[in-house]
């Protein structure tokens, strides 16, 4: 399912976090929101998920206007930087959470839930950890569980807020490849926020570069590198000093 972001503006007090932001994420695309800290990229992702609301503009999932729906009605898969796993629940129950809170009429049976959760734990290769609690897992393992939990509700879009930001370099690289492979097999429309250009260029189909709440450039990694739209993009990507071969 595609995502359409139309003329989104949001302020925190006097600070304009987002200023007339518009772009589309095509169905099955993997897009990175890239920008320095404080650029508004996380706010934009949270507005897209319904965790925060913009003062102006509209959000569409496919043709559906979801602007006034809150997060629990939009049901976008969301992965947080610091995992946000339920500390008091074991891994299995964490992944099953989204299925168990469904209305009775839509809720799968307990055996269906079991099958689905086990399949997801296989996907993230952590099936043997089902009975552990989050505190017993490493950062990389926790983030994989957070993926599995977000996927359990069969979301039509996946939103990731600095998903690798809290991990060390090696694990970050592994998970990056894992995400790209996962996306290549499922083609689930995905948006992820990052401040790391290497990560954005390596993983994403297209990159949206944001600064001061304004979109600076949208394009494929090659386009952005070869034709930076303005001075900010050039400097942020450090193209003057260290040209990356296209």
């Amino acid at each position, binding site marked *: 399912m595609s995502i359409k972001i139309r003329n989104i503006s949001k302020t925190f007090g006097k600070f304009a976090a987002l200023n007339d932001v518009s772009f589309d994420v095509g169905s099955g695309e993997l897009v990175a929101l890239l920008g320095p800290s404080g650029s508004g990229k996380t706010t934009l992702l949270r507005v897209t*998920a*319904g*965790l925060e609301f913009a003062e102006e503009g509209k959000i569409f999932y496919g043709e559906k206007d979801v602007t006034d729906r*809150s*997060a*629990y009605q*939009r*049901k*976008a*898969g*969301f992965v*947080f930087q*610091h*995992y*946000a*796993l*339920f*500390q*008091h*629940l074991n891994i299995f129950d964490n992944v099953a*959470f*989204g299925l168990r*809170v*469904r209305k009775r009429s839509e809720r799968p049976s307990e055996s269906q839930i079991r099958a689905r959760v086990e399949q997801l734990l296989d996907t993230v290769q952590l099936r043997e950890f089902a009975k552990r609690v*989050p*505190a017993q897992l490493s950062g990389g393992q926790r983030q994989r569980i*957070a993926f599995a*939990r*977000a996927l*359990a*509700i069969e979301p039509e879009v996946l939103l990731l807020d600095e998903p690798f930001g809290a991990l060390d370099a090696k694990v970050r690289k592994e998970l990056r490849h894992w995400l790209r492979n996962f996306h290549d097999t499922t083609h689930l429309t995905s948006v992820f926020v990052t401040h790391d250009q290497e990560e954005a260029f390596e993983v994403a189909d297209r990159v949206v570069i944001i600064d001061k709440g304004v979109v600076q450039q949208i394009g494929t990694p090659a386009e952005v590198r070869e034709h930076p739209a303005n001075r900010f993009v050039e400097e942020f990507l450090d193209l003057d000093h260290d040209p990356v071969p296209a």
Partner: protein
Amino acid sequence: MAGAITFFPTKAARVRRATAESPFVKVILIGILVVFFGLFLILPLVTVFYEAFSQGAVVFFKSFDDRATLHAIWLTLVTAAIAVPANTVFGVAAAWALTRFHFRGRSILISLIDLPLWVSPVIGGLIYVLVFGRQGWLGPWLQQNDIQIIFALPGIVLATTFVTFPFVARGLIPLMQAQGHKEEEAAMTLGANGWQIFWRVTVPKIKWGLIYGIILCNARAMGEFGAVSVVSGHIRNKTNTMPLHIEILYNEYQFAAAFAVASLLSVLALVTLVIKTYAEWQAERQLRAAAESGE
């Protein structure tokens, strides 16, 4: 009285610093502490039980075979059964609102929650007499409609609720502040509604802080003397709670009976202490877990 209450004190460092006291000073300080503890806390507590059984176990148990005493115990239980759940709901709501939202007047509100800890309990009772009493603001209207609040159960419950208001909220605010609300947000994106988020995510997260607050609130509700004394009117078999009843028995020279009832309240205090310590320990664990998973 609830003078000094510490919520989840942090552990001091063990390393001896240049500023640390000499062993001699240490011994003196610890000595003073032990003497103080013995004289002002342990000895009186032992005395309560000693006096209660001074005329034998038969007299002790006979003290409870008395209509006025049983009524006082019953009234205390009823009062706590209303005031504690009410303050649990207030406390959770207050802590939730104060830690989730940043609004103007927030810090004033946090201070106001503490108000019952600063003012004398007598004043806590008096304000209700001034509002609901015969000569009070609402007195004439209440009389016309035949509603009695002062010198009746509603007054006792109001005064008790006032005095015990801070405990639940104060226990929860630091905990909920440290935990943040990422887990609640995660639950929201997974399709949970507000009610489900509260019961399945928030309550388990704050469970031990909540139990800690409730148990302190309950102990204070059952033991409150000053505020209740003002609004109760001390009518035997009607508006006498356990603490008030103890005073009456004592003034009537029924020492064994007075101490027998007092020992019951003391047992409550000891049970509270045990549960409180355990809950505090668990709450600290939850806080640590929050700190670890947070950053």
